[in-house]
């Protein structure tokens, strides 16, 4: 991973460079591949930023300085952490400063700007203050630039880690510098730094280098190759514990609420008796919602917690769960069950994905949608050999254009649903970055209860002239849809509001509503087409915008049951007709059988 990004950084010009720096960072803190969901504890991240004079040199054409870029980056990470994982700890440490500020003030030229702690509004403001011209002046006033000793800086950081009493699951340190020889060839200092870096790595800290642009290029091999953690060995990796993130467009994610990616379930895909393939189940997409509110005590603004108690109305004594039962009322009768009975009613099977059979792809109906799909990917660690079966199934299903129908029980005491496993082959873009992961998408299929009978009105179909005019309109309004092109304006606005309140801003930053039609632009593009179309389909007196005239008494409507082929189940519509006959209903498949 590191090697790859270095390559990118070297090859790109400075305008693009900034973008990639962001991207690189986001990969690391949002999608760090070594984050294992099983390990409890908090993630931590230390920004170790070079504050020597070179960092403040502005680029040609007023390009922001490396220091400025770094501060923008840190600020983005702070606000993003606040939204995505506010429990994580972040620190900001400068080295190569004139002044010193660290816990025991035992290190010179190291300035701990932010201790390892949860990020908050104050910290965002602090970093904000270090941006731009004024930021550079503030940095010069408070810290100044001085001698560089990376060894001391690393030592100081290791103390930050050891001062933390919390359990840390993941420790990462990122060095931001544009100096490939920070000590100007002083071999003692170089050795010191290497030793200290070695110590840190031994305690589980991963050290990354964010080397910034420098005239003549940044040569990692001169010094930093010995400081940073070695990249994870691809060949040994085989299967990663967690999937890692996508490079593309991660910058946009700053404001996005990210949940830790993890398997929603690990179950067996059972092809038949004794043939179980282990798979992990991952969400393709989850509806992001505003975070829930916290209740505060009005007087002090301190959070309160709620407790729900169940007690007996008559005696006032608290009721244990065993002292209550569950009930429902049907047909004027209360039906009572024990709580565990209520659970067992829901139990059908142990968690599994059970293969029923295969169907040709065209049998998957577009409108049969009841909930967002999930992605299946093999779990070699649970059952060895799973990946091979999985790969073979994937290949064959794709070739034969079939999907698998399976019965899916995600958890114990969970009634089954049926899913269509649709093969998805891996896709990579021109720079060999994965755009679509390999796996089976599990599309949830509706039961009879989920499908509603509709009374479908019938109209004359449009003429070719009318259709052709509409085709012109459509062609004028073509665009390339991308699933990540639309931000949710409701959530974006909410976070901007919070940010404004937290940072004492006068007004929240305005948002752009991407799902608002750009009416003027559309009108301009369509020009006279709209009127031409309207002339073709609407009479002069017709105004679709006016309130509809008093409802005409609707005549007898015919419900057409499209489904008349015999099968294991008689369509519900038919059954409903056994007794209750609605006026005008015709059951198509009756005629043939009964005279």
């Amino acid at each position, binding site marked *: 991973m590191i090697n790859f990004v270095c390559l990118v950084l070297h090859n790109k010009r400075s305008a693009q460079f900034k973008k990639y720096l962001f991207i690189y960072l986001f990969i690391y803190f949002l999608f760090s591949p070594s984050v294992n969901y099983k390990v409890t504890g908090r993630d931590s991240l230390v920004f170790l930023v070079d504050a020597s004079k070179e960092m403040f040199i502005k680029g040609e054409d007023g390009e922001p300085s490396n220091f400025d870029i770094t501060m923008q980056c840190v600020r983005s990470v702070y606000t993003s952490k606040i939204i995505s994982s506010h429990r994580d700890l972040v620190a900001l440490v400068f080295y190569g400063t004139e002044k010193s500020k660290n816990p025991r003030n035992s290190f010179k030229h190291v300035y701990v700007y932010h201790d390892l702690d949860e990020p908050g509004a104050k910290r965002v403001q602090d970093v904000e203050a270090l941006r731009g011209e004024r930021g550079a002046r503030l940095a010069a006033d408070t810290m100044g630039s001085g001698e560089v000793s990376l060894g001391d800086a690393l030592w100081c950081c290791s103390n930050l880690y050891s001062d933390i009493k919390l359990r840390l699951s993941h420790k990462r340190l990122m060095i931001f510098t544009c100096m490939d020889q920070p000590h100007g060839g002083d071999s003692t200092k170089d050795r010191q730094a290497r030793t200290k870096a070695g110590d840190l790595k031994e305690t589980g800290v991963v050290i990354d280098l964010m080397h910034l642009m420098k005239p003549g290029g940044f040569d990692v091999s001169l010094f930093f190759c010995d400081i940073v953690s070695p990249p994870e060995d691809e060949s040994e990796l085989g299967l990663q514990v967690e999937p890692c993130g996508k490079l593309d467009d991660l910058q946009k994610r700053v404001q996005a609420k990210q949940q830790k990616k993890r398997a929603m379930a690990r179950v067996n895909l059972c092809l038949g008796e004794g043939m179980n393939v282990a798979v992990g189940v991952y969400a393709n997409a989850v509806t992001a919602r505003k975070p829930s509110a916290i209740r505060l005590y009005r007087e002090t603004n301190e959070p309160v917690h709620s*407790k729900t108690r169940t007690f007996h109305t008559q005696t006032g004594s608290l009721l244990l769960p065993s002292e209550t*039962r569950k009930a429902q009322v049907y047909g004027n009768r209360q039906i009572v069950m024990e709580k565990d009975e209520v659970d067992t009613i829901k139990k059908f099977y142990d968690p599994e994905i059970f293969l029923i059979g295969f169907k040709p792809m065209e049998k998957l109906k577009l409108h049969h949608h009841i909930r967002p799909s999930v992605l299946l990917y093999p779990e070699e660690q649970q059952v060895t050999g799973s990946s091979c079966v999985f790969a073979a199934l994937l290949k064959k299903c794709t070739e034969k254009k079939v999907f698998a129908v399976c019965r899916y029980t995600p958890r114990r005491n969970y009634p089954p649903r049926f899913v269509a496993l649709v093969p998805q082959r891996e896709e990579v873009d021109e720079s060999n970055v994965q755009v679509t992961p390999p796996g089976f998408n599990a599309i949830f299929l509706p039961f009879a209860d989920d499908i509603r009978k509709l009374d479908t009105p019938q109209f004359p179909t449009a003429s070719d002239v009318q259709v052709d005019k509409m085709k012109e309109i459509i062609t004028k309004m073509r665009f390339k849809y991308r699933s990540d092109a639309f931000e949710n304006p409701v959530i974006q606005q909410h976070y901007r509001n919070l940010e404004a309140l937290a940072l004492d801003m006068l007004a929240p930053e305005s948002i752009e509503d991407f799902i608002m039609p750009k009416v003027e632009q559309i009108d301009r593009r369509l020009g006279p087409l709209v009127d031409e179309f309207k002339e073709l389909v609407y009479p002069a007196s017709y105004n679709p915008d006016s309130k509809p005239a008093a409802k005409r008494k609707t005549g007898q409507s015919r419900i057409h049951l499209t489904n008349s082929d015999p099968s*294991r189940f008689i369509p519900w519509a038919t059954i*409903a007709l056994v007794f209750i006959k609605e006026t005008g209903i015709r059951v198509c498949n009756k005629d043939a059988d009964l005279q």
Partner: protein
Amino acid sequence: ITESGNCSLVLCMDVGFSMSNSPPGEEPPFDQAKKVIQKFVQRQVFSESKDEMALVLFGTDATKNPLDQDGQYQHITVRRQLMAPDFELLEEIENHVRPESQQTDWLDALVVSMDLLQKGKYDRLNIVLLTDLSTQVSSDNLDVIIGNLGKLGITLQFLALKWYGDGDRRGSSRPGVGKGLSREQKQGLEMVRDIMLSLDEDEGLDQVYTFSEAIEQLFMFKHIERRPMAWPCQLTIGSSLSIRIVGYKAVTDEKLKKMWITVDAQTSKRDDVKRETVYCLDDDNETEVQKDDTIQGFRYGSDIVPFSKVDQEQMKYKHDGKCFAVLGFTKHDSIHRHLFMGSQTIKMFAPKDDEHAGVALSALIQALDKLNMVAIVRYAYDRRCNPQVGAAFPCIKQTYECLVYVQLPFMEDLRQFSFPSLENKKFTPSESQLAAVDSLIDSMMLVEEDENGQKEDMYKVHEIPNPAFQRLFQCLHHRAVNPGTPLPTMEQWLKDALERPSAISERCQAPLEEMKRKFPLKAVEKKKELKTGAQIFEPDAKKSKVDEEEEEFNLAKISEGNVTSVGSVDPARDFRSLINQKSLPFGEVCQQLTHRIEQLLSNRSTHYYMKCITCIQTFREQSVKLGNADLYNSYLQSLKKSIPNSGLQVFWDLLVQGMISLFIGGSRFSPT
């Protein structure tokens, strides 16, 4: 009429002599008819239908009906007047509908039923007649009866036995009508045909069913039927092109509207149980504060930003309400099926009475279909609902055209993972492995061409009723009718419906065996995972069920003899025994228990911790039972105090996780 869906209905059942006759080995018509009405009423009860229903029996020994006069309308009994079906009706059917020995003219029974329907409160009137048509019928007043049926708008349905041969109409295209029927039955059949034809020219005998086909269909509980709600709106393209549309939910993740309520275990009364939520400060005393004294806030990193409801309302994203506005058009294949969001699809039609809108919409649908494109739209249900982005697909069927709307994800919703490639040498399947998969797929195809070249789908998921609802209703029905007995097992038809079709199971046997040979699979031994509190507690949580506890206690008593002190093997059980025996004072027993707990804790091992937690749980439960919480609370308080110094934080955390609440009664202390 279709708008108000409710109807008044009379079930009119023949219980006469001939109904209990049947050839050996066959189920008598009476039993079949009874099952039909039982299943039907059950379904009505659980679908919470507002339809009213009456029950008329004919062929009864007794006579009880309003038309009983001068020896007319004899042997007809009105068992139940028109009212909503409930469990009483089900019990009535269970206990009072039995074979009797008279024979009654079914036309008479029809007249009684018509008379009852006059008092019905709904416009739609139905009579369902269940008979084997074996009785002598006098057709004198047939014209009058038909006239009245028509005048009152009554729909008549016949359920007859042995309509033709074996009653299996599927498979045989032209069943021999009237085969093997008696003279009376043939005559009855003619008369039924007359009535049906004169009521509705189109349909005639469409509304005649055999018992067995009715019963086959009624085995399932009625699925939820919701009246589709119309959503009138305008599809807009730019500022000046709009088309009036009406949306209906077509497919949606249907949930049961009824929730479980909590009742007191003893009285089964809901009113005896009250739930209350209180708010407490995070101080040592967990000081309670009034709900009115709280405001809402949101977390912003380590800060909490107070953000009142009023401010939030003021500052939140606002929009203009109801909308279906086209943002643009895009290629159909740029929309990925696996990124459909939400829990529904909506079908958009033009309003029924607006032909112009119909044509305009048709132009759009046809054009999209021809270009293989879809519309990307902004959709907002109304002002209070958040707007969505979604796709409108063209849908062209034989009888209608519409747009199908599905929600698409926002950028924030996406989880873009990448996974290691499977094109990895380690996992690449060999040719013979691929061949094995190939033949497995071939053997398991659910869609096949039959002899006529018709594609036959043998497993239509969308025709299976939701098993969760079916099972729930089955259990509810069982419990209502047979209180105090254990829940029944799942019905066989439901089990079968959820399994692989037997034809497939047989066919895939050999290919599956081949797969097993070709692909070695080995489950990896699970590493010892860090147990969370919940996992450790799961088995114990179950034990706390009162019944099991009592049982356990009794067993203990038998096997262990008399308990005299709290031992170390199972201190919780000993403690419970001693308290039940009442041979020692409560205080002393408690002391023995706490002594044991201290001893066990000194071992500093998870296994002993678990034992201690069981002890504390039992301590708490017995204290609550005896209404004496002082000893328990003071012990727990001292235990809590000692935790930081004794290095037992792990134990305490487990304890806190495992118990619903630590302390008893009003003095609540924060466990954390």
